[in-house]
């Protein structure tokens, strides 16, 4: 596949050219944190970041997403009938996404695109987006991507993998989509063998830096009901305050709510992020709540990611080791510790 080199000076020109035909998104510094935003100009792009505070999942699955609109006007013959909102999905290029976050899209694909049903919004946005990932040379101490089957230079969910090398970036196409993006780039020169070698070395070095706080293999064989009934959940759940920070920042948490909102005689049906941490998430109309206790809700989040998902799809876990929940949990519930406990409970004490 095609590999090109773009010097740091030439990168803005490349971005400018891409912006002519695409909506280009990338990490932008806002105050003290980074966030993926549509670039207004090439210099908004700031690749000098570790990762964004919020995961880029809202690029595919916005926190608030209007699905349908309707009229409630009494004399309207179409009153009460939901209409799809006209929607045109612009071609998008996401520059600088971290390989872990891109991997998350792939893990969530199996939820939204199935044999029986396909989520039209997720699918359209995924198809219209080219992911140009930036390999991670300085993983944080909270990163554990290699423990969950991905890595700082994992290109498996990317269209193009970018590696920062001496003087610029090596861009390596991973998919046809990526190849098409890199073709005929006057700002670039073709990459030399030495560059490719250097990039490989950088990737290997980076992977070595990532901590591996647990092994997940023992989890696979344990029946879900046994893990579900384990005693350590009591300890894990104590500190939890049941806010939605972990789920809202998580790149693989996809759960959502659907709500109607009405103003006067017009209304919309919206899709909104929701979270298994909230009691309302599972509250029946009758008042019964299968997960009324904090312990049940906390357990659900970890079990869903590391057991249910894995058992259901034979893939995963549904975690990419980005460490956001570790860094931002207000009460320091550390997923690395929890998974280590889950895993340890699956190993017979010798």
């Amino acid at each position, binding site marked *: 596949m095609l590999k090109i080199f773009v010097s740091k000076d030439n990168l803005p020109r490349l971005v400018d050219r891409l912006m002519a035909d695409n*909506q280009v998104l990338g990490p932008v510094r806002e105050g003290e944190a980074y966030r993926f*935003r*549509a670039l207004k100009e090439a210099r908004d792009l700031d690749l000098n970041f570790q990762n964004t505070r919020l995961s880029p999942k*809202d*690029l595919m699955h*916005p*926190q*608030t997403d*209007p699905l349908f*609109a309707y009229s409630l006007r009494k004399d309207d013959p179409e009153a009460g009938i939901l209409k799809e*909102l*006209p*929607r*045109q*999905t*612009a071609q*998008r290029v996401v520059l600088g996404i971290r390989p872990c976050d891109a991997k998350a899209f792939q893990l969530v694909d199996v939820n939204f695109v199935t044999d029986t049903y396909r989520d039209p919004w997720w699918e359209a*946005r995924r198809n*219209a987006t080219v992911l140009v990932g930036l390999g991670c040379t300085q993983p944080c101490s909270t990163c554990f991507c290699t423990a969950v089957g991905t890595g700082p230079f994992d290109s498996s969910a990317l269209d193009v993998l970018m590696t920062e090398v001496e003087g610029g970036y090596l861009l390596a196409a991973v998919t046809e989509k990526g190849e098409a993006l890199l073709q005929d780039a006057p700002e670039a020169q073709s990459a030399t063998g030495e560059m490719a070698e250097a990039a490989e070395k950088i990737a290997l070095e980076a992977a070595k830096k990532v901590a591996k706080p647990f092994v997940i293999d023992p989890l696979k064989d344990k029946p879900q009901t046994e893990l579900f009934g384990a005693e350590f959940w009591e300890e894990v759940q104590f500190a939890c305050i049941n806010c939605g920070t972990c789920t809202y920042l998580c790149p693989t948490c996809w759960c959502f709510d659907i709500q109607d*909102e*009405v*103003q006067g005689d*017009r*209304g*919309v049906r*919206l899709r909104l992020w929701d979270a298994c941490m909230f009691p309302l998430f599972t509250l029946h109309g009758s008042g019964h709540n299968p997960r009324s206790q904090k312990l049940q809700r906390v357990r659900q989040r970890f079990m869903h990611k590391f057991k249910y998902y894995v058992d259901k799809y034979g893939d995963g876990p549904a975690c990419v080791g980005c460490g956001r929940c570790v860094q931002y949990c207000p009460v320091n519930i550390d997923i690395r510790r929890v998974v280590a406990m889950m895993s340890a409970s699956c190993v017979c004490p010798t």
Partner: protein
Amino acid sequence: MSEWEPKIVAFLCNWCSYGAADLAGVSRLQYPANIRVIRVPCSGRINPKFILAALRHGADGVWVSGCHPGDCHYIEGNYYARRKFALLKSLLEHTGIDPRRLHFSWISSAEASKFAQVAREVVETVRAAGPSRHFIKTLPQGEAAWGQATAELQAEVV
């Protein structure tokens, strides 16, 4: 804008101010028709949520009126209400709601003329403040209604 008339939601206590409104009507006292009355059992019944709901739905002003201190049908409901309103009014003004949009009064059921007079005062003050521009809930439909935070991500929705 010349046709704009202020919309005012008035929460009136059943035992006094609502009676005053009634008496004002029966007595043919003139007061502006900009007021939509919601009868409540006591000014103490008014939850701040009600006042925010009125503003969210586009009311240009909110007026709350109850019994004079000491005259509460439930003995002390308006005393509690007074403390609640003091803090609420202050918080809303502090966060940028125009003070001219929030009004409170004590009007007994006999004070029909005070009712009409306060009603005029409220309407004129809100009129001077102009149409409410802040804190109005709009439908999340299309780009225009979205906050800055999501506008760009929503750019694809035409």
